[in-house]
C-alpha cells in the first residue's frame, strides 16, 4: 500500500478510533479527552504532511480504492480516497479546527455530565467530515454527507432535556433530508447517465453531457441542468441557503464548541466544497450557475440583515454564517470556485474564532447569551476581547485581514461574471458588506463596550476564561488575520487547485481578475478606494453611533419601523410557513388518509364488510342446512334435473 494512502487512511480513521474509545470504552473524563485529542492531533499532522506533499511540493494527487462496497457485472461501487489540492485543503482546515476545538472543549464542557459523550461525538464528526472530503466517489460523499448530518443532529440535541434543543435537532435533520432528497436524485441521475459513481470516470466524460436531455412532463430538460440542480438542492440543505436555511439559527441550541466546528467552520461548508468538487459538471449548466448565483446573493443579503435584530450572541453569529455562506455560494455561481474555497478557508478560521470567543463570554456569564445583559466586558476579559476584535475585523473584510482578501475577490468576481444574475448579485453582495459591518460591531459593542448591563453580583465573578479556552482563541487569531497574505495570490491566481477545479474559458472570471492583481499590499491599499470598504466602515460607524453614542436610538427605530421590524423578527416568516401550513398540512392530510382511507374505506367497508357479508351469507346457507334428509334429497333431485336439462 502506498504511504500517501496509509497517511490518508490513518488521518481519516484515527478520529473514529478516538470516538469509539471515548464513547463505548467506558473511559474516564481525562482519558476521553486525551485519547480524542491525540487522535485528532495525529490526524492534523498527517493532513499537514499531505498538504506539504501535494501543495507545497506539487506532488501527485492520490486516488486509490480501499475496497469494493458491492459489485457485479451490472455495477461496481467502491470505497476509495481522493487526496488532491481541493480535498487536502479541506483536510487541513477540518482537522486543525477540530483539534483546537477538542482542546477548547476541555474548558467549555468541564462541568457537563455528558463529557465523554461530547468528545466521542466531535471525534465522530471529524471522521465523518474527513470521509466526506476525501471521497473519490458519490457514494462515499453521500455517506459522509449523511454521517455529518447525524452527528450534527446528535450534537444539536446534546442537551436532550431541553425542549428547544430536541425540536431544533429534529428540524435540522429533516430540513437537511429535504436537501438530500434532491441530492440522491442527482446521484441517481449521474449513475443513469454515466453508469458510474466514480469521480474520475464521471468528470472525464463530463463533456458527453452537452446536449443530453431528459424528457420530464413533455419538457426537454438538459441532463446537465437536472444533475447539477438536484445536487445543488443537497448543497442548499447542508450549506443552509434560502429557503432551506431555517435549521441553522436553531442549531445554536447545541453547545458552543460544535456551533464553531460544525455550524460555522466545517459541516455547513460541505455544500460549497461539493459544488467546487463537481465543477466539471456545474460548468456545463449556466442555468444552474445562475440559480446558484442568485440564491447565494439573496442569502448573503437577507440573512445579514436579520443579524441586526437578534439578541442572542450566538444567533447573531449564526446569521452571519448564513450570510457568509451566501457569499461563498454566489462565488460558486460566478464560477469563481477558487474564491469560494478561499473564503471557506478564511471563514473557517475567523468564524470559529468568533464562536469560540462568544463561548468564552458565555462561560464567564454562566451560560447567559443575551446581548442585552452584557456590556463593558472588555475590562474583565481582555484576551477574549482581542480575539473577538480580530475575528470581527476579518469578518467585515478590513484591508489586510484574511477575510478581506477572500471577500473582496468574491465581490470583484461578480463584476466580471457574464451571467444574467451577476448585476443583482454584485449589488446584493456589496450592500451586504454594510450590514456585515453593522451586525458585527453591534455585537462587539453590545458585549464588550458601553454601559455594563450585567448584574452587580455577576460582575464580581467575571473573569477571563481558563487557558484551555484562551489558547485556542489566540492560535485561531493568527490565521484569521494573516492567512490571506500567503494564500491570496496562490489560491486565486496561482493554479493552486490544479486539475481539481475545472473552469471553462467563458466563465474564467478569476483569470480576468488576475491582470489587476499587483501584490497583497497594493491590493489592500487599492481597497481604500472601493465601495465595499467604505460600506463596511459605514456599517461600523452606524453601529458605533447606535450602540455606543445613542443607546436609546435602536429601540426608537424599531418602534418607528413597526411592521418592517416585525418582519425581521419573524425571520421573513419562513419558520411560521414551514411549521404551520407545510408540516401541519402534511399531518392533517396524513391523518385523513389514515382515518378515512385506511381505517374506514379499506378496513371497515372492504375487509370487515366482506367478513360481515360472509356472515350474512352463511346465515342463509345455514338455513339451507336444515339437517332434514328429505330436504337434501329434494335438492339433489332438483340439481340432477337441472343438470339433465342443461345437458340436453
Amino acid at each position, binding site marked *: 500500500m502506498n504511504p500517501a494512502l496509509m497517511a490518508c487512511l490513518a488521518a481519516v480513521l484515527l478520529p473514529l478510533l478516538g470516538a469509539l474509545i471515548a464513547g463505548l470504552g467506558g473511559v474516564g473524563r481525562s482519558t476521553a479527552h486525551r485519547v480524542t485529542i491525540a487522535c485528532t492531533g495525529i490526524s492534523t499532522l498527517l493532513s499537514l504532511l499531505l498538504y506539504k506533499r501535494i501543495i507545497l511540493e506539487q506532488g501527485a494527487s492520490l486516488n486509490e480504492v480501499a*475496497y*469494493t*462496497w*458491492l*459489485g*457485479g*457485472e*451490472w*455495477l461496481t461501487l467502491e470505497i476509495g480516497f481522493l487526496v488532491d489540492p481541493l480535498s487536502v485543503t479541506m483536510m487541513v482546515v477540518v482537522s486543525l479546527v477540530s483539534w483546537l476545538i477538542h482542546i477548547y472543549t476541555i474548558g467549555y464542557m468541564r462541568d457537563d455530565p455528558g463529557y465523554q459523550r461530547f468528545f466521542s461525538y466531535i471525534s465522530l464528526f471529524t471522521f465523518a467530515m474527513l470521509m466526506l472530503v476525501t471521497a473519490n466517489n458519490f*457514494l462515499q460523499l*453521500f*455517506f459522509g454527507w*449523511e*454521517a455529518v448530518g*447525524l452527528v450534527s*443532529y*446528535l450534537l444539536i*440535541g446534546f442537551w*436532550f*432535556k431541553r*425542549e428547544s434543543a*430536541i*425540536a431544533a435537532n*429534529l428540524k435540522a*435533520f*429533516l430540513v437537511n*433530508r*429535504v436537501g*438530500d*432528497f434532491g441530492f*440522491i*436524485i442527482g*446521484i*441517481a*441521475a449521474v*449513475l*443513469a447517465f454515466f453508469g458510474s459513481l466514480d469521480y474520475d470516470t464521471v468528470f472525464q466524460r463530463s463533456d458527453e453531457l452537452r446536449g443530453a436531455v*431528459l424528457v*420530464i412532463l413533455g419538457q426537454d430538460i438538459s441532463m446537465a441542468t437536472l444533475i447539477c440542480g438536484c445536487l445543488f438542492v443537497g448543497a442548499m440543505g447542508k450549506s443552509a441557503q434560502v429557503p432551506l436555511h431555517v435549521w441553522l439559527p436553531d442549531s445554536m441550541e447545541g453547545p458552543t464548541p460544535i456551533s464553531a466546528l460544525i455550524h460555522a467552520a466545517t459541516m455547513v461548508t460541505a455544500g460549497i466544497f461539493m459544488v467546487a468538487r463537481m465543477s466539471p459538471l456545474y460548468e456545463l449548466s449556466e442555468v444552474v450557475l445562475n440559480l446558484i448565483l442568485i440564491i447565494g446573493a439573496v442569502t448573503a443579503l437577507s440573512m445579514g440583515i436579520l443579524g441586526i435584530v437578534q439578541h442572542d450572541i450566538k444567533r447573531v453569529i449564526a446569521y452571519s454564517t448564513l450570510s457568509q455562506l451566501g457569499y461563498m455560494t454566489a462565488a460558486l455561481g460566478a464560477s469563481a470556485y477558487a474564491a469560494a474555497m478561499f473564503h471557506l478557508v478564511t471563514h473557517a478560521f475567523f468564524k470559529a474564532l468568533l464562536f469560540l470567543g462568544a463561548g468564552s463570554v458565555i462561560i464567564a456569564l454562566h451560560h447567559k447569551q443575551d446581548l442585552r445583559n452584557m456590556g463593558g466586558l472588555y475590562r474583565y476579559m481582555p484576551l477574549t476581547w482581542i480575539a473577538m476584535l480580530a475575528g470581527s475585523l476579518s469578518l467585515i473584510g478590513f484591508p489586510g485581514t484574511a477575510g478581506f482578501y477572500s471577500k473582496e475577490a468574491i465581490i470583484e468576481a461578480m463584476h466580471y461574471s457574464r451571467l444574467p444574475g451577476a448585476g443583482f448579485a454584485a449589488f446584493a453582495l456589496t450592500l451586504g458588506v454594510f450590514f456585515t459591518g453593522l451586525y458585527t460591531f453591534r455585537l462587539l459593542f453590545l458585549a464588550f463596550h458601553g454601559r455594563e448591563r450585567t448584574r452587580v453580583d455577576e460582575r464580581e465573578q467575571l473573569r477571563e476564561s481558563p487557558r484551555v479556552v484562551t489558547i485556542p482563541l489566540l492560535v485561531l487569531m493568527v490565521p484569521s488575520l494573516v492567512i490571506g497574505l500567503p494564500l491570496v495570490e496562490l489560491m486565486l491566481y496561482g493554479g493552486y487547485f490544479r486539475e481539481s477545479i475545472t473552469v471553462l474559458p467563458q466563465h474564467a472570471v478569476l483569470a480576468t481578475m488576475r491582470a489587476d492583481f499587483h501584490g497583497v499590499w497594493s491590493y489592500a491599499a487599492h481597497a481604500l478606494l472601493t465601495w465595499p470598504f467604505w460600506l463596511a466602515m459605514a456599517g461600523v460607524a452606524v453601529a458605533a453611533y447606535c450602540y455606543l453614542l445613542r443607546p436609546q436610538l435602536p429601540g426608537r427605530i424599531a418602534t418607528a419601523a413597526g411592521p418592517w421590524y416585525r418582519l425581521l423578527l419573524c425571520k421573513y416568516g419562513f419558520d411560521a410557513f414551514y411549521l404551520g401550513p407545510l408540516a401541519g398540512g*402534511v*399531518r392533517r*392530510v*396524513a*391523518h385523513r*388518509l*389514515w382515518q378515512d382511507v*385506511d381505517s374506514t374505506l*379499506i*378496513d371497515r367497508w*372492504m*375487509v370487515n364488510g366482506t*367478513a360481515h357479508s360472509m356472515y350474512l351469507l352463511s346465515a342463509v346457507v345455514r338455513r339451507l342446512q336444515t339437517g332434514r334428509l328429505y330436504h337434501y334429497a329434494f335438492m339433489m333431485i332438483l340439481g340432477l334435473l337441472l343438470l339433465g336439462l342443461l345437458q340436453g
Partner: protein
Amino acid sequence: MLSGLIWLPICWGIGLLLLERVRPALVAAAGVVGALLTFALSLLMYIGFDPAAGMQYTEQYAWIPAFAIRYHLAVDGIAVPLILLTTFSTLLVALLVPPTDRPALHLAAFLVLEGLMNGVFVARDAILFYVCWEAMLIPMFVIIGVWGGPRRVYAAIKFFLYTFLGSVFMLIALLYLYHRSGSFAIEAFQLQPLSLHEQTLIFIAFLLAFAVKIPMWPVHTWLPDAHVEAPTGGSVILAAVMLKMGGYGFLRFSLPITPAACALLDGLMITLSLVAIAYIGMVALVQQDMKKLIAYSSVAHMGFVTLGFFLCFTPAAMLGLQGGMIQMISHGFISGALFLCIGVLYTRMHSRQIADYGGVVNTMPRFAALLMFFAMANAGLPGTSGFVGEFLVILASFQANFWIAFIAATTLILGAAYTLWMYKRVIFGEIANDQVRALQDIDSRETLVLGLAAVAVLALGIWPAPLVELMDPTLEQLWAHVQAGKHG
C-alpha cells in the same frame, strides 16, 4: 442438511413441550440451545454454499407418487440469505426472556415456526412449499392467540383469514400448473410455456397470496392489527421473516413462471409500491401507537422490495432485483430490532402509546443509544443496512422513470420524519412521569440481543459485497430467464 434445517427445530420444539413442568430457566436455556444449533447449521450451509453452482444441497424423495408430489429440497442464492435471516431472528427471539405463562409452549411454537419457515425457503416442490406456507400460520396463530394483547382474537382471526384467503388462490394456480405440466416441481412450472391469458390469471392468483403476505397496499390492514396484538417475539418473526415470504414468492413464482404477465402488469405493481412508500409513509407519521408506527413503516419499506423487483423490465433490472433482496434482509434485521426495542419498553411500562413516554434517555441511556442506531437505520442512514437497498432501488428507478425515483426518494424525508419524531417524543426530553422515572436500563441479556442485531445492521451497511455476491449468480439467472420469457 436442508432436512435438518426443517426438522431439527421442529423436533426440538416438540421435545420442549415435554418439559412443561421443568423449571422455566431450564426451558429457556433449552430453547436457546435449539435455536443456536439451527443457526449453526444454517451457517454451515452458508459456508459450504457455492454461489456460482446454482441449486445445491438437493434432497429428493418420492412423497405421494400418485400425484408426482416429491419431497424435494434445494437452495440457491435467494434462499440462503433468507434462511440465515430466519435462523438469526429466531435465535434473537429465543434469547429473550420467555413469558411466565407456559414458557415451553412459547418457545416450542417459535421453533416449530422456524422449521416451517425454513421449509418454505428450501422447498422445490410446490405442494411441499404450500404445506409449509399454510402450516406456518398455525404456530403464529397460537402465538398471537395465547400471548397476544386484549384484541388478540380479532387480530389473530383477521391475520389468519386474510392470509389464508390469499393462499387459496395460490393453491388454485399451483393445481392448474400441475394440470399443465404434469409435475409439482417448481422448476417444471418455470419451464412450462403458458399463454399470456393463462399467465395473467396465474399472476393475479399469486399476487393475491404474495401481496397480502408482504403486504402491499391496499391489502395491508391486517399487519398493524396483528403487530399490535402480537407478543414481542411474534412481532419480531412476523416483521423479520414472514413478510419476506411474499417477496420470496414474487421471485420464485411470479417472475419466473409468469414473466409475460409481469411485463404486462409491471406498471400496476410499481404504482402500488409507490403508494406504499409515499402514502403509507405519511400514515406512519400520525400513528400514536409505537407498534403500529413500525408496522406501517414496514409496509413502506417493503414497498421498496416490490418496486425493486418489478423494475425487472427496465434498464437497471439487476440493480432493482439486488436492491429489493438487500432491502428484504436489511428490513428483517432492522424491523426485528425495532420490535425488540418496543418489547423492552412494553415489558417495563405495559404501554405502547407514544404519549405515555418521554425522557426515557434519562433512565435508560444504553437502550436509548441502541434505539437511536436502529432508528437511524430505519431512516436509511448510509453505513447501515437500511441505506443499501433503498439506495440501489432509487438508483434503479431513476433509470426507469424520473418520477418513480422522485416518489421513491420521498422516503428520505418521510422515513426520517416518522422515525425520529417518534424517537424524540419517546426518548428525549425531561422525564415525563413517575413510571419513566422508575425504568431500569436494559440488562446484559437484552443488550446482547440488541447488540447482535446492531452488528448485523452495521456489517451489512459497511460491506454489503458478500451478500451481493452470494445472490448475484442466482439473480442474474433469474433475470435472464425473465428476459427470455417476457414476450409470452
